[in-house]
């Protein structure tokens, strides 16, 4: 088909371009501007070139050490919640009913945590875990298990991980359930005929058919957990010490706590870049994994 050349079509793109310019490009450019300068009171700015970036990527400096510490912390957090939520979500999806009123009931129950605003989730767990009035904290301490997420690093981590699993496993489960529902009955019947065990049905049919939704689930959960802010901020405020200070929390501390706009801008640009790269890698993997390429010459 021949394409018609019509330069007037640019006018149709113009409104979107204007909106994106004001909502994304201009703010981003101010961040780029800040990242090159040092700020003092009275709105005084001094040119600093790539100084902040050098400092940020050098772990021996204060800024660099804080950045890398929170980066590793954040990556570790993402790895742990993925390792728990993905298998757990698959198991939940597999054990869900496939017909009858129980399906609707299960779906509603699963969707509930997803509907709760993030700071409410944080508040729920903040109170739930308190040793004086929280059901969880009180019961644990009462039966002889010392638990205090305000004072103990490990307790704080466990609380935040359990909270994230509680909040987000449903998403993985729902996606997997949708993937499972799309498998035609004939596959299960054929597996039955072929004498496949329950485990082979899982590895040979269900898992391969779920791989696309699983990729999406992993991508969503990774991005969300890598950008996590509200829930740990509400529960632990990044503490005890710095033990649950993730990148976004560190960023807010630098930008709004210390009012170091230059350092914060440099950090947020690098943070943004990491997210873009991860997105690109996932996108490439997904588009390649999803395509089936039938090859004609193989057929007699």
């Amino acid at each position, binding site marked *: 088909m021949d394409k018609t050349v019509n330069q007037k079509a640019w006018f149709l793109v113009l409104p979107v371009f204007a909106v994106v310019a004001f909502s994304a490009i201009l703010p981003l450019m101010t961040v780029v501007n800040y990242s090159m300068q040092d700020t003092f009171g009275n709105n005084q700015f001094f040119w600093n070139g790539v100084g902040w970036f050098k400092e940020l990527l050098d772990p021996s400096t204060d800024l660099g050490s804080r950045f890398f510490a929170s980066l590793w912390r954040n990556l570790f957090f993402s790895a742990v919640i993925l390792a728990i939520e993905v298998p757990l979500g698959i198991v939940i999806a597999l054990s869900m009913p496939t017909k009858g009123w129980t399906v609707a009931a299960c779906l509603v129950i699963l969707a509930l945590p997803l509907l709760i605003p993030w700071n409410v989730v944080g508040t729920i767990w903040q109170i739930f875990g308190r040793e004086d009035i929280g059901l969880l904290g009180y019961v644990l301490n009462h039966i002889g298990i010392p638990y205090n997420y305000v004072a103990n690093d490990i307790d704080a981590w466990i609380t935040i991980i359990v909270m994230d699993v509680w909040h987000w496993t449903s998403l993985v489960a729902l996606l997997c359930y949708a993937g499972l529902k799309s498998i*035609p009955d*004939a*596959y299960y*019947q*054929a597996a*039955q*005929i*072929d*004498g*496949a*065990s329950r485990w*082979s049905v899982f*590895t*040979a*049919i269900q*898992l*391969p*058919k779920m791989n696309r939704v699983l990729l999406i689930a992993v991508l969503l959960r990774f991005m969300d957990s890598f950008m996590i802010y509200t829930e740990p901020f509400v529960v632990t405020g990044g503490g005890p010490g710095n033990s649950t200070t993730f990148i976004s929390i560190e960023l807010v501390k630098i930008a709004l706590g210390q009012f170091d706009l230059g350092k914060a801008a440099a950090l947020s640009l690098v943070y943004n870049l990491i997210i873009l790269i991860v997105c690109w890698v996932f996108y490439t993997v997904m588009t390649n994994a999803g395509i*089936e*390429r*039938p*090859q*004609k010459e*193989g*057929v*007699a």
Partner: protein
Amino acid sequence: MARIDLVDLAHSYGGNDAAPESFALKPISMTWRQGGAYALLGPSGCGKTTLLNLISGIVTPSRGKILFDGVDITLRSTRERNIAQVFQFPVIYDTMTVGQNLAFPLKNRGVPKAEVDKRVAEIARLLDLTADVNRKATRLTADAKQKISLGRGLVRSDVAAVLFDEPLTVIDPELKWQLRSKLKALHRELDLTMIYVTHDQTEALTFADTVVVMHDGRVVQSGTPAELFEKPAHTFVGYFIGSPGMNIIAAEVKGREARIDGHTITLNRGYDALPAGAKVEIGVRPEFVEVTAPTPGLLTAKIDRIDDLGRIRFARVRVGDVKFAARVPAAFAPSEGCVGLKFDPANVHVYADSRLVEGAA
């Protein structure tokens, strides 16, 4: 390898208490002999897939029993029945190569590796898949995928029966012929009981020794292709098999004569004992009605059109309001308007309430 007996087998998806008329499969009793090539023929929704799934054990019957070599297996699982089944659309295991797909049913049953390799190589050779054995199965076309499904059905040599559920739906017409003759050759070679479900009469008649015709949840006739053609036991069989189907005409039958539209046709046999009050029809295949020039003493008809099928021509004619199909002899050049219809008395059958009545000689 086994003889399969169905004893009063019936199934309803609505449960055993559903009304008898709503049963997907009405009670049947029949025997499938070991080594037979059967086709289960009927229109969509006639219960043929239900019957197949009952035999393979995917569906448990509401009533009745299934025996393999005299042993009741009604409640046994598919796996225990040792049945192979090929489905309408290709089912392949995405992560495996073609060879691993073919080996899967054998591996699951703990067949030794040497034996597995031998069988896989043999089946791949029979289905022309040898070149693709090490390729990922997902990368192949629908045709090739369906061949893998067929291969998985055939790879086990000890199965009680191989069931095919319209397996060639997705295959190109050209390849369809090849694969069908291949299946037939495999049947002779492997001495397997094969049951082939289809709604395509050509497929059924070319594949099977015995064709079982189903209609509305019942088996209406089971016989060789020639029997179905020459002596349909039910008007449905006459109409469904053959192209064009049998002419079924309401008639008054008395002794050796049938009256249509005030005209008398001589019959080969005597029909004095027709059930009282039954709906009486005569059935005659278009191949046995000849169009001639209008002659006194012959039934007169008006020509609607002539279908030229290449080696044979059929005239679509009309007697009053009744439509007929009739053969046009090679030498006959039909002129406008009216023709005479000449019936072959040996091939005119009488049906009472849609069922064939055997006349007295």
